[in-house]
């Protein structure tokens, strides 16, 4: 933190120091000018907030290099300017018939929608200041089904290479404003994940490319189609026409491709997804597990609970968590064998650290032990610990054959997958807990790396005439050894269809701006195979087009719309479904309404009898002292496709709480060995590729290996993503896509990283009172020890003493009569609703979905790296991570922390203006427009969940972002305190509805945004005065406890203490690790 002072200065927009990017670029002359001129109408509103003028760009990030590199003003002009272009008018008019002006005129925009944070600053002055006149722009012809002010919900799905996420999208005045899982869908049952949540901002991203370009000049789509189809037709058989596409997940697109293939047999399709290529997910096998009936779960480097990168994430997590909610009714046990620290390992009862290359060998040992035939593990000297682990594991598995599941890692050697299958077979799990299906979510399985190599070869051989890249960015993410960049230039014409003018788009001849999935028709399959129709929520903001249209343009109905194509694909199936062949339209509408097509799930019994023998070779681990570099898609930005989504960039990555960066993640021991400190720069090299990265400590990481997240180091991601982190693709090779032997060395320089919560590294101490040993996290010791913030027990302890969560020092909750004052009355008699929340720490898997959901629901601002560095992130909910025990092999406890809504809220008492007071229903209300910003409440909050707008973080200028905001939540201006409100806007809505219908609010009628997003159902919200509500029952459980209750804050949020289910045989195995001092 020794450069914090500088960063603080950067933070105030005062010169860019040694860092790569400055926060809030306040100096973007032209758009400043524009906005000024745009703002003429609202001058009055601005008067009392001069800062809006100087801080127009507010929280947005821009990197010097983006500014210089991005070609011309095109990328840089704000939507304000765009608003005047015919394209935009066109786009908007499609969506908002004849009310286009409403979205273009800066004043009127403020007319209906409650996007008026700007005037917040005026709040108090309302008494002595005039409000400016605001015009109204009524419709000319109002849409039939529109009730202004009432949201509508539509079903769609988020296409993702590892399986689509069925969604239910909230739309206000036909603008999607919130993306959530589809609660009725059998696959994810309403759960979602940070990435799906983030796609909303992805669609409104002001940096999306907005034009069809030919050599940098604006063109019309038709011109492209003409050139393209003309060319292809001229080739007759498609010779020299190559398509490079991201993994195709749309059956319709696959169908269209097949049609193209038949029409032009010589045309080639190459699929390449950096996070999929080389994994078993690209192959034609579907591996599915049903953890709801699995008592023992073994993860072979399978990080199945930290994000959708692992196929089937949503269902796996849901089932995993369900089996942990009621320990008394028995719970599952998770063994995690992993090569990098993940939440999977942190949640596991028993975690075995292996270097990545050791995993296949260990798997082989395991397979052999459980009786898989024909497997011969390479000779390897396993440590005592590993042997003991194996023995216990095997015993446990055999004891639970048929009731266990072994999950293969996605980023492991192919043998691991096959062996896992064999093991499951040997254990008789196939058909019970593990299923295999012939088809997968990608209808055109292929060996992506091989294909890509072939493509490069053809390029170099000059065979490639037109290279058409569909939603892929090879210049950025192709493996280093292919030298794609130079091969690329051999293509006569390069066409790039993409959402951004990214690395590839920059140098392609043609760039076609693609439409976002929320803007276009398509289809895709959830991981269980169920087909979802992707329907547009809004007309393409920038007239984008999709791969469907590109391929369709080559077929005999070139103008056939994606809608028609999709319908063509599925109408037969839909009709088949119908018991009584009825009205097609009705059936189709039902599908759109539900969001999926009945009976399209995969047949999972296909390979039910997997032969329990394995004959493939198992690779020998690399030498123990050699260094391994592990590549994983980033938990937040995946392979880089989400780089420009501020919400995801600012998201603290699981376990290490690192935001805005990836880095060389390594064990403390390695840090010591290298004699470096965090934020020092190291150079990673594999083969002859080199990449420089900041050192970030990752507790529990295997020694002699370094994890590098993909998806960073973008040059042309946009104002948010460009220049963040380092590009790990530079050292990734086709021959080692997941882990490679490499080397590391310390190079001069510092690289500040933003770690969003107190980082155990800063706070170690061997000093007095034995606070923390050098190898422990002081925070962890404090939280688990004397402070009783995290409480847990093993299953046996729990059975022996169900009340464990309330025994021990300061574990007790003070009784209601501890206060000198009479208690405030929250009884049923006094108030119908008393809101409360319960969070099951056993279920929480720390996937961060809640945080992103909260961003969207509550219009939370993104503050940027510099501000994040000095602890000013605005997230209302965060996932506190406490490390228990030796940092070389810790166990992490994940605790979602949000406003506890204390009944005796310390924050309220100290506010001089009564800006935060208590509602009769027990909510701790924060009234933004009353807040003068003394910040006393934040100081006095024991949970530090209040967030302050130190600068003008909210973006009042960018048009597209205004369209995205939730109209029911005020946008907070500079100098105002904010915090979690239990989604009071949803509560109020429910209250008014219930009141109009003259009935009490039903349990589950009010769902908070975090609860809605949680794939593990860890959060429950409801009415404490309703004795039958789920939250009341959870609160009544003995395991429920309140954090820091001993100071009598009486939180309304309670936590259900953890219970783990360790294998007694492995419980006490004291292992000596190297000291992890960093």
């Amino acid at each position, binding site marked *: 933190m020794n450069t914090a*002072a500088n960063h603080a*200065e950067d*933070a*105030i*927009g*005062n010169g860019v120091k040694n860092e790569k990017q400055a926060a809030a670029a306040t100096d973007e002359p032209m758009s400043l000018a524009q906005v000024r001129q745009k703002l003429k109408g609202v001058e009055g509103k601005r008067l009392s907030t001069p*800062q809006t003028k*100087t*801080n127009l760009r507010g929280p947005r990030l821009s990197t010097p290099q983006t500014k210089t590199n991005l070609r011309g003003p095109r990328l840089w002009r704000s939507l304000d300017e765009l608003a005047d272009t015919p394209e935009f008018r066109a786009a908007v008019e499609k969506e908002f018939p004849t009310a286009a002006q409403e979205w273009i005129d800066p004043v009127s925009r403020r007319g209906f929608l409650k996007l008026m944070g700007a005037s917040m*600053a005026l*709040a*108090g002055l309302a*008494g002595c200041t005039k409000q400016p006149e605001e015009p109204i722009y009524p419709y000319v012809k109002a849409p039939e089904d529109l009730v202004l002010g009432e949201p509508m919900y539509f079903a769609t799905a988020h296409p993702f290479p590892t399986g689509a996420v069925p969604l239910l999208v909230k739309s206000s005045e036909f603008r999607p404003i919130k993306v959530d899982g589809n609660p009725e869908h059998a696959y994810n049952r309403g759960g979602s994940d940070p990435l799906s949540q983030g796609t909303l901002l992805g669609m409104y991203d002001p940096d999306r490319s907005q034009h069809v370009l030919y050599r940098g000049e604006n063109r019309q789509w038709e011109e492209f189609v003409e050139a393209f189809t003309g060319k292809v037709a001229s080739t007759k058989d498609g010779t020299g026409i190559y398509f490079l596409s991201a993994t195709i997940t749309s059956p319709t697109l696959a169908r269209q491709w097949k049609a193209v293939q038949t029409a032009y047999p010589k045309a080639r399709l190459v699929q390449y997804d950096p996070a999929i290529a080389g994994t078993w997910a690209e192959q034609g096998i579907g591996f599915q597990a049903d953890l709801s009936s699995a008592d023992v779960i073994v993860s072979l480097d399978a990080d199945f609970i930290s994000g959708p990168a692992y196929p089937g994430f949503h269902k796996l997590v849901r089932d995993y968590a369900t089996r942990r909610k009621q320990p008394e009714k028995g719970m599952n046990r998770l063994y995690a064998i992993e090569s990098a620290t993940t939440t999977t390992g942190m949640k596991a009862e028993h975690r075995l650290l292996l270097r990545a290359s050791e995993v296949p060998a260990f798997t082989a040992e395991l397979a052999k032990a459980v009786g898989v035939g024909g497997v011969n593990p390479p000779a390897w000297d396993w440590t005592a610990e590993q042997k003991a682990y194996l023995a216990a594991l095997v015993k446990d598995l055999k004891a639970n054959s048929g009731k266990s599941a072994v999950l293969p890692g996605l980023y492991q050697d192919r043998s691991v997958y096959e062996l896992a299958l064999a093991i499951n077979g040997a254990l008789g799990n196939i058909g019970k807990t593990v299923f295999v299906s012939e088809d997968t979510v990608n209808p055109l399985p292929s060996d992506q790396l091989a294909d890509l190599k072939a493509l490069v070869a053809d390029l170099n051989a000059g065979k490639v005439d037109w290279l058409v890249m569909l939603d892929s960015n090879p210049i950025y993410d192709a493996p280093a050894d292919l030298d794609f960049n130079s091969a690329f230039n051999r293509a006569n014409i390069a066409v790039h269809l993409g959402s951004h003018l990214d690395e590839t788009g920059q140098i392609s001849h043609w760039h076609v701006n693609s439409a976002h999935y929320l803007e276009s028709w398509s289809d895709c399959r959830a991981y269980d195979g169920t087909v979802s129709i992707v329907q547009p929520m809004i007309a393409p903001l920038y007239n984008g087009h999709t791969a469907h249209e590109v391929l369709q343009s080559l077929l005999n109905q070139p103008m056939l719309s994606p809608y028609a194509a999709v319908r063509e694909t599925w109408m037969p199936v839909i009709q088949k479904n119908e018991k009584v062949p009825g009205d097609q339209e009705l059936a189709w509408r039902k599908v759109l309404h539900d969001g999926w097509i009945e009976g399209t799930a995969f047949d999972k019994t296909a390979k039910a009898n997997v032969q329990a023998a394995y004959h493939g070779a198992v690779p020998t681990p690399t030498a123990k002292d050699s260094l391994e570099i592990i590549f994983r898609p980033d938990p937040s930005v995946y392979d880089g496709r989400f780089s420009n989504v501020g919400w995801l960039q600012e998201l603290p990555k699981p376990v290490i709480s690192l935001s805005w960066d990836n880095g060389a993640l390594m064990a403390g021991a390695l840090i010591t060995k290298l004699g470096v400190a965090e934020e020092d720069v190291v150079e990673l090299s594999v083969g002859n590729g080199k990449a420089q990265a900041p050192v970030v400590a990752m507790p529990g990481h295997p020694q002699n290996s370094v994890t590098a997240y993909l998806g960073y180091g973008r040059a042309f991601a946009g104002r948010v993503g460009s220049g963040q982190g380092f590009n790990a693709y530079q050292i990734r090779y086709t021959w080692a896509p997941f882990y490679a032997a490499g080397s590391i060395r310390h190079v001069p320089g510092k690289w500040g990283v933003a770690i969003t919560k*107190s980082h155990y590294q*800063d*706070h170690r*101490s061997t000093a*007095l009172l034995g*606070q923390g040993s050098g190898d422990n996290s*002081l925070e*962890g010791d404090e*939280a688990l020890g*004397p*402070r009783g913030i995290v409480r847990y027990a093993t299953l046996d302890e729990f059975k022996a003493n169900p009340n464990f969560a309330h025994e021990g*020092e300061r574990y007790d909750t003070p009784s209601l009569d501890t206060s000198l004052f009479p208690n405030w009355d929250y009884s049923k008699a006094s108030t119908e609703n008393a809101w409360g929340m319960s969070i099951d720490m056993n279920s929480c898997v720390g996937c961060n979905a809640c945080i992103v959901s909260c961003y969207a629901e509550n219009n939370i601002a993104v503050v940027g790296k510099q*501000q994040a560095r000095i*602890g*000013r*992130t605005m997230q209302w909910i*965060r996932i506190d*991570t406490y490390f228990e025990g030796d940092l070389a092999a810790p166990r992490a406890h994940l*605790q979602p*922390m949000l406003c506890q809504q204390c009944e005796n809220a310390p924050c309220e*008492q*100290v*506010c*001089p*203006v*009564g800006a935060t007071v208590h509602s009769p229903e027990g909510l701790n209300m924060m009234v933004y427009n*009353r*807040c*003068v*910003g*003394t*910040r*006393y409440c*934040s*100081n*006095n909050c*024991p949970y530090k969940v*209040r967030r*302050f*707008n*130190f*600068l003008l973080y909210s973006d009042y200028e960018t048009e597209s972002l205004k369209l995205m905001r939730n109209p029911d939540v005020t946008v907070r201006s*500079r*100098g105002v305190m904010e915090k979690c409100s239990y989604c009071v806007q949803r509560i109020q809505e429910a209250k008014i509805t219930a009141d109009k219908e003259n009935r009490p609010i039903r349990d589950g009628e009010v769902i908070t945004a975090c609860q809605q997003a949680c794939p593990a159902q860890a959060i429950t919200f409801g009415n404490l005065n309703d004795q039958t509500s789920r939250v009341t029952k959870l609160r009544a459980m003995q395991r429920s406890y309140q954090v*820091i209750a001993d*100071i009598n*804050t009486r939180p309304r949020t309670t936590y259900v203490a953890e219970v783990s289910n360790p294998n007694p045989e492995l419980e006490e195995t004291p292992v000596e690790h190297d000291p992890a001092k960093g």
Partner: protein
Amino acid sequence: MATSEVNIHDRVDPATGEYRVIAPGESFLSVTEKVTRIVLTPHTPLGWFGFFAVAGAGTTMLMVALTWLFLKGVGIWAISQPVAWGFAIINFVWWIGIGHAGTLISAILLLFKQGWRNSISRFAEAMTIFAVICAAMFPVIHVGRPWLGYWLLPLPLTMDVWPQFRSPLMWDTFAVSTYATISVVFWYIGMVPDLGTLRDRAQSKIAQYFYGILSVGWRGSVRHWMRYETASLLLAGLATPLVLSVHTVISFDFAVAVLPGWHTTIFPPYFVAGAIYSGFAMVLTLAIPLRKFYHLEALVTERHIDNMGKIMLVTGFIVGYGYGMEAFMAWYSADHWEAFTFWNRAFGPMGWSYWLLVTLNLFIPLTTLWVRKWRTNMIFMFAMSIIVNTGMWFERFVIIVTSLTRDYLPSSWGTYRATKWDYMTLFGSLGLFTFLFLLFVRFLPMMPMNEIRLLLPAAKVRAKTGPEVSK
């Protein structure tokens, strides 16, 4: 007539062995002369201009910092989560503390009939007022939306919403504003007769009008004098509990909070003691150069410096007791929050600031101030006054910042690094203070002549005033 030339018997009263309060040989006229010439002279000394320029520069720096602050927001400072209060509040508490000496000297010492306070009370009061001005500035500018500051006053606004009187910040509002008002009244009332003197001695018409109006036609009637005396006594009687209450209320800002390290019952007494401690230090910082510069050694004698040294010694020990008590309670209460907070103060990442303050506030002063010889050594006392005030600033730093960096929830622990804007504001406020004080020295009577006259032997109404007196 620098002190060095005066022989020891003039400085020390042979009878008592104490330093004299006033050097011998002063008359009503000479005293009046000494004080009025500073104000009435047409020739402002160059040195004054020198200081004034420096102070002016400081004030300008402050204005720059404030302008940027209003344009950008408090985010230009280092405050963050969890340390939401930083320099601004530290400076506020520090200045208020300094502002305590004046009233204390003029009020409490008056009640205790400490004659020696007469010649220093006036500029001590002025110092108080300017310190309070500097202090009062910070709560206003540190809020996120200063233009809404008037919401802290109970006004009948159209919102129909009122201030929240359970908040210590509201108490501050009233305590500080009251303190400022009373100090000004006390100061002005005390100055009226001297303004009369200036009026009568002024040569230029402008000066006569200026002081004539300010002195509201004071003419020294004994009837007036008697009411005046009563009023002064009453004001003193009122200011005494006030001065004690103000820093008590300030300490409530912290004591009332739940934060470990703030939530402490020892705060009120030891804040008050600390205030007096730093206040007297500041009086010394001003008195020592002043008496030298304006040759006032005869009126501000070693006696004053010596006594103030003693008072600092006492208050220093009270403060020390406060620190000790915190440490003791941390252990004795067996409360983990307390124990950890204390441990963190002393040995945590910010431990350096704790040891710095202990050194500056306790070790150095409390070991040396015993020595009478040093207590009357101007250089030493000047240095000491600076040391103590630095120490007192760090005391507030430790209380506010260090406590905030690590409180209840370990996940939210943070750190704090001041930005250049923080420093500009701090030193700017010093500039403003000096600026105002220099103006005062130049244009207003820096010492209460009427009170000094009382100390002169000539003021004694001798017994041989005729037989009637004896009865």
